[in-house]
C-alpha cells in the first residue's frame, strides 16, 4: 500500500484550480499553504495498479507545474494473512 507525499507547485495563478483538481482526485489528501503557492499532497493507494493510474492522472493535470517527492513508504504485506 504505497503512501507518498509531495510538494506540488501549481502553474502561475493556478493554486486554487490545482487544489480543486487534487481534491477531486481519488486517494489524495491536500494541505495547501497559507502564504505561498505550494501544496502538500499525500497519496495513499491500496495497490500498485491504482498507484500507476494515479501517477498518470497527476501527470495529466494542467494546473500542476511540478511535483517533488518528499516521502515514500510501501507496505508490501499481503492482505488477509
Amino acid at each position, binding site marked *: 500500500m504505497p503512501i507518498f507525499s509531495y510538494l506540488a507547485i501549481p502553474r502561475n495563478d493556478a493554486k486554487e484550480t490545482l487544489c480543486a483538481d487534487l481534491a477531486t482526485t481519488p486517494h489524495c*489528501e491536500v*494541505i*495547501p*499553504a497559507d502564504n*505561498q503557492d505550494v501544496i502538500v499532497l499525500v497519496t495513499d493507494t491500496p495497490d500498485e495498479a491504482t498507484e500507476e493510474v494515479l501517477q498518470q492522472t497527476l501527470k495529466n493535470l494542467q494546473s500542476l507545474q511540478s511535483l517533488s517527492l518528499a*516521502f515514500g513508504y510501501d*507496505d508490501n504485506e499481503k492482505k488477509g494473512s
Partner: protein
Amino acid sequence: MTTKRKGVNEVTMKLNRRRFMKYAAASSAVASAGSLFPGISFGDWKNISNNSGVVSWQKAPCRFCGTGCGVLIGVSNNRAIAVKGDPNCSVNKGLCCMKGYHSVQALYGKDRLTKAQVRKNGAMVEVPIQEALDLVASKLKETRDKHGKDSVAMYGSGQWTIPDGYVASKLFKGCLGTNNVEANARLCMASAVTGFMTSFGLDEPMGCYEDMDHANVFVTWGNNMAEMHPVLFSRMLANRKRRTNVKIIDFATRLTRTSQAADKSIIFKPQTDLAVANAICYEIIKNGWVNWDFVNQHVSFHKGKTNIGYGTEDHFAFTDKAESINLEEFKLFLEDYTPEKVEKISGVPAKDIKYLAYIYGDPTLKVTSFWCMGMNQHTRGTWINNLVYNIHLLVGKISTPGNSPFSLTGQPSACGTVREVGTLTHKLPHGVVMNEKHRQMAAEIWDVPVSNIDPKPTYHTVEMFRALDRGDIKFMWIQVTNPMVTMPNLNRYRDGALKDDRFVVVSDVYPTPTTDVADVILPAAMWVEQEGMFGNSERRTQHFGQIVDPPGEAMSDTWQIIEVARRLGFEKQFSWSQEDYIEKIWEEYRRFHAGPKHEMASYEILNERSGVQWPFVDGKETRWRFNPKYDPACTNGKDFDFYGKKDNRAWIWARPYEPAAESPDSEYNFWLNTGRVIEHWHTGSMTRRVPVLHNAVPSAYVELHPEDAAELGVVNGEKVKIISRRGEVVMPAQINGRGVPSRGMVFVPFFDESYLINEVTLDAFCPISKQPDYKKCAVRLEKA
C-alpha cells in the same frame, strides 16, 4: 485464545501504522517545504488530527458525579479533543478526576447511536428521526385516547439537563395532565429529599463545599468518598495536611480506599447505622453536650409511625403521621440506644460510639458529616437522614462554616433537574401537585388551564415499573438512563417492559440493555453536544453551551420532547425557536423560584460564570442557609431562622432502629451490597467506551472477605455464583482488592451489563421516600 488476541493486536497495529505513516508523510513534506520556503505555514490541516492547531476552550460542568467540577473542553475542528479543569470554578479549582479528564472520549465510541430506529416485525429498522418522532407522538396519543391519560409515562434522569426536565414536566404534567413523571433520582436521592423535607421543610443542603476548609472532623457515613466524590475527597485530604487538628473518620460497612485514607475506620453491621446514630444522641444528652441555647430556640421534637413496612408488594401505600413530643419523651426513646446496647447489634465497640459522640459534642470541634448512597439507598433512608440531622441539631453544629450535615448528591443534576424542576410524581417546579396555589402558579407560567394539572400523585419509580408490568401503564418514554440494568429485582421489570401491548421509547447515546427492549430508539445528543444546565450537590447551577455538534441525526433530549409536544398539538406552550430555546426555557423556569429562598441567576450571568449558587439574591450567592449572616431569607431576627417549617424550627425526629427488609438467614446467609468504582459511571454505557477507563477495570467482580473466600474454596478470579430468592449471577471473585467487605458480606459494582447484579437485588424501599435499598439483601454463595 492467545493467537486470536495476537491477531487482533496485529490488525490494530497495522491500521495505526498506516495512520502514522500518512502523518509522517505529511510532516516530511511540510518540513521540506519549510526549508525551501522559509516562513511557510500550513494552517488548514483538515484531515490530520494530530496537528497542534489552535484549540478553543469552553467551560462546562463535568458529565459525571454530583460534585459538579468545572471543566474546560478543548475543541479543535468541531471535535472535543482535550479536557482541563476550570480554574475559575470554585468547586474544583482546576482539578478533575480520571473520569473528568477523559470524559470527552465518551462522545466517540464506535457504536454511538446516530440514527433513529423503530421496531418493525420484531427487528429494529433505521428510520429518519422525524418519522420516529411522528410515531412516538401518534402512539402516545393513541394510548392516551384508548387507555386514559395515566396510561402514558415519562421516566427521566438526574443526568437530564434542567431544560430537559422542565419541558418533560411541562408536557406531561401541564399539557397531558398526568403525574406519571419520574426520574432515576428516585433511586438515588429520594431519601435525602424526604430527610430534608421532614427535618427542615426545604430541600437541599444548607452548607456548601467551603465547609471543608473550616471543619476539624469529617465523618463519612457509609459513602466511599475517595472513589465517588474524588475531587471533594482530595480537598479534605489537602485540608488535613495543611491545617492542624483535622481528622477523617470513616463509618462504613466495608473497608474501602476511604477507610485506607481515614484516621479512624469504624465498621458497622448493615442497617445498624440507625442504632448507632441514636446512640450518639444518647451519649450527647447524657454527657451534657447538648447546645441548649440552640435547641431551645431553634428545634422542636417529633415522632412518626413505626413498623412502616418495606414496599415489596404492589400498590404499597404509606403516609406518615407527625406527632409532637417533648424532650423527656425523646430522652426516654433514646434509653433503648445506650452505646452498650447498640454495640451488641451493630458490632461497633461502645467506646467508638462514645468517641463519635465526643467528636460531635466537643464545642471546639467543627464537624462536617458527608453521606450519599449508604444512607439514601436504605429501607429507612428518610429516618437515617433525620437521625444524622438530629445529631447536628442537638449540638447546634449546622449552617455555620465547617459545621455541616452535608448530603452529597450522586448524579450531576439530580439536584438541578429532578429536585429543583420537580420531575417526580408529586412535584411541580415550585411546590407539589397537591397544593392548589402551587398548581395555579404552574398553570399560569405554563399557560395551561389549571384543571390540567392533576392534584393526585400517581406512581413513584418502582411502582411505575410495576404499573408497566401490570399494564396500567402502556407507554413509557425513557431518557438518559438505563433502567434495564438499574431497577432492583430486575427480572420482573424487564419482563414487564417486554410484554405485548407495551410501547417503550428510549432516548440514549449508546446501545444498552434498555435500548434492547425499546420499540423506538431516538439517538440523543450527549452532554456538550446540546446546550443546557446542571445543578450540583451544593446548589450550584452550571451552564454549558453547545460545544460540538451531535453526530448523525442525534438530537438534544429537550428538542425531542418539544418536537413531540408540537405534534400533540401544544405548539403554543412549546413555541420556542432552536436558536434561543434554552435561554427562553431558563427564563421561564426561573420564575417559579423567585424570592430570596430560591432565586436563581439569569441566563446571562450563568453564561459568564463557572457556576452560580442559588439562592442568588441581589447578585450574591447564599452560601449558608438559615443563618442570617449569610442568608437574606432569614426574617426572625434571631441567630438562626429555619424558615422551611411553619414553627421556624428544625425538627428532631425520634426514629427507631428497624431491621432490613431481607436480612441474612440460615438459607441465604450473606449480605449483598452494590455500588460503584471510581473508573466507571453507573451502568458503564459511557465510561466503558473510554479506553483508559475500560482498560483499568474491564469487567465486574464480586468482593469477598479472604476468610469467606477460603471457606468457599475460592481464590482470586475464580467464579462465584451469587443466588437470591429472585435470581442468580455468576461472576469472578476479587479478594483483597481496593475494597474488603466484612465477613458475611459481598460487594458487586454494577457498571457491567454482562453481570446484571440487579437480577439478584430486592425492590424493597423506604416507605416515606420510596427509594430502593441497593445495599442490603440476602444471598447465598456457591463456588461455580
